[in-house]
Structure formats: C-alpha cells, structure tokens
C-alpha cells in the first residue's frame, strides 16, 4: 500500500490573499511536525491533508486519492484533531461522542459498544463513559477528541495545535499519547519541545516551506527566523 501523501504544485488563496505558494512535498515519515508563525499557512497546509481545504491550484494525493475528488475516501484514512476540543465534541456524553464517529460504519450495536469501551480505556477515560462531555477537564476533552477520531482506525492523524489550550501536564499526556500511536502523525504546533525526537519538521513562512529536515535543524532555523525580529 502506498502510504504516501503527495502535495503537488499546491497554492491556496483566501480571496486575494495567497496563504500557500507552490508547495511540492512528499510526506512519508511516521512523525512529521509543522511549525511556523501565526498566519504562516501551516493550519491551511494541515487542512489540505484530509480535504477540509481543497487547494486553489495543484493537487493533494493520499494513497493516490485526490482530496478534491474523493474527499470522503481521504477522510476515512486521514483523521483531524483541532486545538479546541469543545468545537469537536458533538454529542452530550463521552461514550456517545466516540460512538458518533462509528455511526456510518455499518457496525452492530455490540461492536460499537466494544470499540467505544476499548478506546476509552486506552485513553484513560473508561470511568467517564457516561459523563457529560462538558464537565471534563481541558486535557480530558482533548483526549476525548483524539479517542473520537482514532476509534475509526484511520491511517493518518493530523493535529492542529492540539496542546495549545492545555496545561503542561495535559500537554505532556497528549504528547506521550501521540508518540505511542501506530498511525502516522502530522502535528502542527507552537510547542517545539513536542517535536524533539520526531523524524521530520517543516518550517512554513509566508506560505512556503523554508526549512525541511530533522527537528534540530528545522527548529534551529525557525528560532533564528523568529529571533530576527520580524512581525509574526
């Protein structure tokens, strides 16, 4: 199976503003980080990967599927987690939100219940299954958001700043969890510590990839870039 994500000649505009310019990338590593200043285009790049954003020009291929033509197929393979779990949790209780992801998978009630129980146990939320989701802590909500997308067993997980709203302990818990996943993970973050030990880090600046390499190299470049006093 070709697990490669290819970004070919991609540019993207919001109105007159070009947020991504002429990107050509192949994403084959299991742990890929994306960093950049606010407004640099990194979140848009992440959204391209599961078809939430379709490029103005060029194409994005996931396992050979074009995100603009087969968005549904792409989203079955590529899950997405946002920074604000409150916007992502749809159902009133914890177990119901996880089960919601499986509604269209044609599974029997018992199988859904089993998978929900398993994933909640794995994410340390087993004791909260019937609790109202809004009463969870921020860290637990983010874990629930992760559990809710991972229960469908996607091949790739894209996370857009999943630790931004978390304290250090919760941030580390989510980071540890991401590290241990079997899925390929593409992580957009401002938390550079999260990316130590990852395989590849891209630095985005003004819609272009300005550095692409191992974390030490890319993070060093990024820190130098930000240290130059340019407005973010």
């Amino acid at each position: 199976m070709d697990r490669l994500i290819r970004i070919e000649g991609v540019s993207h505009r919001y109105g007159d503003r070009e947020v991504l310019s002429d990107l050509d990338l192949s994403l084959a590593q299991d742990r890929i980080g994306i960093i950049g200043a606010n407004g640099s285009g990194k979140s848009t790049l992440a959204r391209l990967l599961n078809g939430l954003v379709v490029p103005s020009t060029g194409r994005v291929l996931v396992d050979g599927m074009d995100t603009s033509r087969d968005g549904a197929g792409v989203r079955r393979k590529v899950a997405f987690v946002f920074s604000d779990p409150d916007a992502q949790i749809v159902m009133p209780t914890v177990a119901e939100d996880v089960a919601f992801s499986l509604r269209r998978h044609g599974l029997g009630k018992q199988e859904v219940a089993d998978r929900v129980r398993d994933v909640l146990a794995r994410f340390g939320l087993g004791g909260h299954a019937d609790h109202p989701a809004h009463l969870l802590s921020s860290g637990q909500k983010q874990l629930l958001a992760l559990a809710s997308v991972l229960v469908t067993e996607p091949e790739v997980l894209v996370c857009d700043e999943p630790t931004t709203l978390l304290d250090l302990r919760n941030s580390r818990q989510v980071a540890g969890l991401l590290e241990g996943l079997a899925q390929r993970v593409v992580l957009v973050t401002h938390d550079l510590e999260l990316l130590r030990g990852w395989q590849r880090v891209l630095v985005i600046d003004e819609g272009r990839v300005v550095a692409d390499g191992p974390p030490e190299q890319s993070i060093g470049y990024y820190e130098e870039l930000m240290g130059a006093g340019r407005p973010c």
Partner: protein
Amino acid sequence: MLTSTYQRGTSLLHRSGAGAKLLGLLVFSTVLVAWQSPVKVLVGFVLVAGLYGLGGFGVRTLVGQVWPLRWFVLFLLPFQWWTAGWQAAVTVVGTLVVAVVAAALVSLTTRVTDLLDVIARLLEPARAIGVDPERVALLLALTIRAVPVIAATLQEARDARRARGLERSTSALVTPIVVRTIRHADRVGEALAARGVDD
C-alpha cells in the same frame, strides 16, 4: 428533557427501550393534563416517586429535578391561588411539576443517542418530503451540546465586561457572545466535515 443527565444503571427502567419510555411519558402526561384534580397530582407524584425508586434513584435526585423549578413555582402558585383558588393552583402547578419530574426520569435512564434514534425513526416518513431524519437528530444533538458551551461563553463575557469596568454595557456582553457563538458554529461545522458527516 433532552439534556445530558443520563445516569448509568441496570434497573428495569434503564433497560427499557427509549421508544417505550417516550410513549409511556406521553400517555402519563396526557392523563395528567386531562384528569384535572389535586388528587390526581398526588397520585401522579406518588407514581413517579415510586418509579424513581425503581430506577435506583433516591430522594436527593428527585428533589434535584424539582429544584430548578422553584422560582417558577413560587411565582405561579400564589398567582393561580389568587386568580382561581387553591385547588386550581395545586392542580396546575402540580401537573407541571410532576410532568417535568417524569420527563427528567426518562432523561436520567436513557442515553441521548437512544432518544435521538427514536426521534430519527419517528421522522422517517418525513423523508418523503425531503426531511433527513439523521440530520434532524444531529441538529438536536448539536443544540444540546451547544448549551454548556454558550453558557461558558456567557460567563466569560460577563467576567471580561466586569474586568474592563463595563458592567452596564450591553454591547460589551452581547457582541463577544454573538461573535464567539458564530465562530464556535463555524468550528463545529469544520469538525463535522473533518469527521466525515457530510460524506
């Protein structure tokens, strides 16, 4: 009734189907409204209290369902007494309280998704006129889910207004709530798309 107050349990009520419970609630409420007398209110309350016991709930849970109605009762009871006499007051207010407590019992023993499934099934015939039952059920779920989010937004907007010394400013309260609610709706839409809801 459609709030996330479900409490896990194994009682007969927990194990009963959501459709049967909704039908029972409908019949009970209809009888309650049709048979107007203070005795009926008492009988209805005793019956519902017994069902709370059957569901494994104590007096505290029962009182917890009545407590949010206290201001409503305190206002309506004397008003009804004054305009229509004590029997009418007890009947009208009692009927409302017993009906709410009965509805809360359904909510306490039934998962919201099970209730939404029933609603979706009931709406199935409406598919012929272009209504998507699944979408209506999802809409209800999102509405329920939005309540605590908007309540938190309201609290934060209040705090922010106070912090800026603008306690009396309506726009300092309403504007951020409207903006943040719209932004939240936008994010929820994006999250639903990411979870393949429209696929």
